[in-house]
């Protein structure tokens, strides 16, 4: 497929996602109130406009990028949005606002980050920002505790979860740091008995970053994020060094940490006990997960139909348990469609990583994709009892501004890496970016004003 045909594919798929969302919206309204929502036309126009805006931004600023990532995200976003409107009118209004902000953030990221490799230079900035964001909820007066997890920050009327953004910043840091030192780490010149380990000084910053994140989040009782960060770290280290030893070390570290927290923290112990036997804890801490399983079971093959189930019986269904609501009303078919969407996003993201030529972009794409794939697995698995439940949002689907905005930023970065690769491998002419055009224009003007032969002659941009 010609790289430019990708954009037409993307447009078609994005419109399809929009139509599916609008149809689901009508069905949910019919199911719930037996009326066609009066605002369907403005809703459809606004939503499709928003998606087409995102598509146009991609077409202008990342025209060589993968064609499936944006439509898949739009699809998940749409299903989540319909579920939220069906669950709670008040939250629906907020989620609409967040959708606009999220698409805005997507476009802004594409504008700000015009060349993926540039990001590597700012790795320490990302580290400091990421670590700082993780610390913010602990600042007295700013941090808030919701549902036992101390991961929220309130600034004026806005609540947000800095951890959602920290995960991207830390992925950027890991990618930048590991691409630089991966050979040194992989060389492993430090011998301990039969083991060859990297020089501690190369590994130390990464270990420190990981330990810091994990400790902070355990302190904030945010187990889902801890698990996500840990996985991200191990996966990126493994991919960067190409040494399976790090997976083994990671597994041992994880096992140790998990066991320690199980022994030390009552809330970790609770989660595991609920996972093993939620039934006997129905009237207590197991209520949410049991109600979630009732909802999933009730969905059966075809589901109760949008607006016709009772997902509101599940506490916090719009956040962590939105997948249970989808499985109830859309059944096995709809829930599988959501699973498939994530599998396809993971596939597309890792294809971007494989196609990428530069290690930094490879690592970044791998890290970002792993974030989405693992996060979705952790929460869906938690809801349907494949793994212990740890509170975390379902990317693009759950209610929540921070999550939606952060995941669209993440998507924009993936799109940017994908586009960079297309240019790099020559599928597309590597046109100058808008920033570069602007710099060139400024330079040309300067040269015109001050045509000194001593400078500027070697700098030029192909017309």
């Amino acid at each position: 497929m010609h790289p430019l045909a990708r954009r037409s594919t993307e447009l078609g798929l994005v419109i399809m996602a929009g139509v599916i969302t609008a149809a689901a919206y009508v069905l949910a309204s019919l199911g719930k109130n037996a009326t066609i929502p009066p605002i369907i036309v403005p809703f459809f126009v606004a939503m499709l406009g928003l998606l087409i805006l995102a598509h146009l931004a991609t077409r202008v600023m990342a025209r060589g990028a993968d064609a499936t990532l944006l439509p898949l995200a739009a699809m998940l976003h749409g299903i989540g949005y319909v579920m939220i409107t069906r669950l709670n009118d008040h939250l629906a209004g907020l989620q609409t606002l967040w959708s606009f902000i999220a698409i805005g953030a997507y476009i802004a990221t594409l504008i700000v980050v015009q060349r993926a490799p540039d990001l590597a230079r700012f790795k320490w900035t990302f580290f400091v920002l990421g670590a700082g964001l993780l610390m913010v909820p602990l600042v007295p007066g700013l941090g808030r505790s919701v549902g036992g997890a101390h991961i929220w920050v309130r600034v004026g009327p806005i609540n947000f979860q800095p951890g959602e953004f920290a995960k991207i910043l830390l992925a950027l840091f890991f990618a930048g740091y590991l691409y630089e030192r991966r050979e040194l780490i992989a060389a492993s010149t430090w011998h301990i008995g039969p083991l060859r380990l990297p020089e501690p000084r190369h590994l130390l910053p990464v270990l420190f970053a990981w330990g810091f994140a994990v400790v902070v989040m355990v302190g904030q009782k945010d187990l889902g994020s801890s698990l996500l960060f840990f996985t991200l770290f191990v996966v990126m280290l493994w991919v960067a060094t190409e040494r399976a030893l790090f997976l083994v070390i990671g597994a041992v570290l994880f096992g140790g940490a998990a066991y320690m927290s199980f022994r030390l923290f009552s809330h970790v112990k609770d989660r595991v006990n609920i996972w093993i036997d939620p039934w006997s804890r129905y009237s207590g801490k197991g209520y949410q997960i049991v109600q979630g399983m009732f909802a999933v079971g009730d969905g059966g093959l075809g589901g109760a139909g949008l607006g016709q189930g009772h997902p509101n019986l599940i506490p916090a269904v719009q956040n962590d348990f939105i997948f249970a609501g989808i499985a109830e009303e859309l059944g096995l078919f709809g829930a599988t469609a959501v699973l498939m969407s994530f599998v396809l996003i993971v596939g597309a993201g890792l294809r971007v990583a494989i196609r990428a030529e530069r290690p930094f972009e490879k690592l970044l794409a791998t890290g970002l994709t792993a974030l989405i794939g693992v996060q979705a697995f952790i929460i869906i698995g938690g809801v349907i009892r494949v793994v212990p439940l740890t509170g975390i949002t379902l990317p693009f689907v759950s209610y929540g501004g921070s999550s939606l905005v952060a995941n669209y930023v993440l998507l924009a970065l993936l799109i940017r890496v994908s586009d960079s690769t297309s240019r790099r491998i020559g599928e597309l002419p590597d046109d100058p970016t808008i920033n570069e055009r602007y710099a060139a224009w400024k330079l040309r003007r300067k040269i015109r004003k001050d045509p000194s032969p001593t400078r500027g002659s070697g700098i030029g941009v192909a017309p």
Partner: protein
Amino acid sequence: MNKQIRRLAAALLLCYVALFVQLNRLQVVKRDELADNPNNTRAVLREFDKPRGSIITADGLTIADSVPSAPGDKYKYQRRYPAYDLFANLTGYYTFAYGATKVEKKYNDVLTGSTSEQQLRAITNLLSNTDNTGTVKLTIRSDLQFVAKSALGEREGSVVVMDPRTGAVLAMWSWPSFDPNQVVIHDDKKAGEVLTLFNALPGKPTLNNAYQERYMPGSAFKIVTTSIGLENHVFDLTSTFPNETEWVPPQTKNPIQNYQGELCGGDLATVFARSCNTPFARAGAQMGADVMVAGTQKWGIGEDIPFDLPGGAKSQFGTVDDFKDAIPKLAISSFGQDNDLIVPLQMAMFASTVANGGVMMQPYVVDETLDHEGATLDKTTPAVWKTPIAPETAAILNQLMVGVVQRGTAKCCMQLENGIQAAAKTGTAQLNALGQPERSHAWITAFAPADAPQYAVAVVLKGVNDEISDGTGGRLAGPIAKTMLDYALAHPLAGS
């Protein structure tokens, strides 16, 4: 690095396969197990989210229906009872937390559209998205029901009007009643409190006293005793009974008295019309327990009435063992005191049987069930329950009951409009022991016109504090029966 990325892809795919497998387990394999979990309320909730059909009266008034709830309600439909308390004890109620009663319970499948016949008929319009809920049409006439309510007023008691020829119940009202709308509110806790209060109120407003309660019948029971005497040739119209104030049965020194110790006697028509006690006490004692018990059983006393509403009461006379070596007890029971308990509906059926030439029809309140398009699903065919007496006996009883109206205990109050002749029997069941303030159930059961009966009625006023005489039942309950018969005769159901 590509090798590792591919392995990562495979690992993540495996994770998602695990999710897919578990999803299949929950949604397909363990689905029923999850649905059967006692904590899972979704199945019941689902029923509450479906529309539910209406209950209508014979004249087409909707007395129970479902309308979409206000937005944001936890259930999609709100059950309504537009006539408030008027039909509460026929429709019953339908609640999420406290179950259903009466027609709402018995005809739940029709109302939800889940009978196999309805499912079958709905297949053709599977795509047109119309609901297939059924309608239950009662034999009750809303106008008669309202007249019954007005006539009874705020006196505890029951009024039953039926068609003696078919067994169709045309009105069935008891006071106190209740407003079922207050029980079907979607606030389960509040509904529970209301229901608890209703159930605790005196007079049992949530019970349909007309068929779920039974009361001592007093002299109205003499219809049964007389029929047994006639059928067994113990006496006939030519028999005479001694003129006496009291009679001392064997095995006791306590005399049985007539009302207010009056001198009472004469031929059968006279003692029946005046409602003397001693002749029937003597007859019962003379016939013995075997004959009396067998005779009452022919009237269905002691048996479940084959009525189409659930939870009915059984009338009672007693068993042969109850009366073994207890002739005084048998004698007293023979004129409707002591052991006897009669369901008001069955009292109406006594008059109906006499009116219907000795054939007792099965009583029913559901005329037909209709599907979502108004086509008949099931129509009740009138059926004979029992034939307690021969037509000749019925004719004599008819004549005796006419006598009650012409010159007996109902003379005061049962002279119908337009000179139509009614036939009746009154009853005054003494509840107080000797020396206590007088308290009685006042009864009347009647039918009209006497020569070609169309309507039968039974009225009971519970535990009234009034002077007890042979005329109490007729004086208190009679006017209500007259109102019912007058109205029904003047207003036949349009189109029938």
